[in-house]
């Protein structure tokens, strides 16, 4: 029985990836479909920081303010977001702070980087700035 259980691999995702997953545009959709396929088959686990919730909800709220989506749709999206059960891991804020200073990125973005570094997992982002700057510290960083 236990031999049949395949443990999933994991990636660290930032808020831009989660937003792309919930609100995909035509460009990112093919990649997102692939991620969701792996996720739904239990082959891929998504991991992030405790800051993810604030960031994703901010993004969804902006989408309403900019009239990209309705409030009703947004509420459904938020429900799905929480039911995806993305693992929230604690980050070391001192290391995060140092990355933020070193790379001139926000504390939020530095947190994703610090988590990927600590867990030795790949970091997926749809944020060009984080990708470019993060490359200096992290080999396994993927741009969506």
């Amino acid at each position: 029985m236990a031999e049949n259980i395949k443990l999933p691999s994991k990636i660290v995702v930032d808020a831009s990836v989660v937003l792309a997953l919930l609100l995909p545009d035509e460009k990112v959709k093919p990649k997102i479909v692939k991620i969701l396929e792996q996720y739904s088959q239990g082959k891929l686990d998504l991991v992030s920081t405790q800051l993810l919730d604030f960031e994703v909800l901010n993004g969804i709220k902006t989408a309403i303010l900019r009239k990209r989506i309705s409030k009703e749709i947004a509420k459904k999206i938020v429900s799905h977001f929480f039911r995806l059960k993305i693992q929230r891991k604690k980050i070391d804020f001192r290391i995060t702070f140092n990355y933020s200073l070193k790379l001139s990125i926000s504390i939020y973005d530095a947190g994703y980087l610090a988590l990927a570094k600590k867990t030795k997992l790949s970091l997926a982002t749809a944020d060009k700035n984080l990708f470019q700057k993060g490359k200096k510290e992290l080999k396994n960083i993927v741009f969506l």
Partner: protein
Amino acid sequence: MLTKRTNLLLRKTDYQFLQLLARKQEVSIGELIRRAIDKTYKERLSFTLEQRKKEVAGIKRLWEKIQLKKVDYKSLIEYGRKY
């Protein structure tokens, strides 16, 4: 049925904690560990296999209602931090 015996090393403080908890709940330390396995690992796995497909299907259904072009995800997050 319990058929497999195993030895595991615990930190002294964890062992003392389990002893206290076992006494309080009137179960063995082994039972506490079995319950922790069910809660921590099996629940996560069963969510993985059943709920994930349902959630992904739900998300894809929502996609049909929101046809988006050229979304700047970073900008969505940064604007949301301010307003």
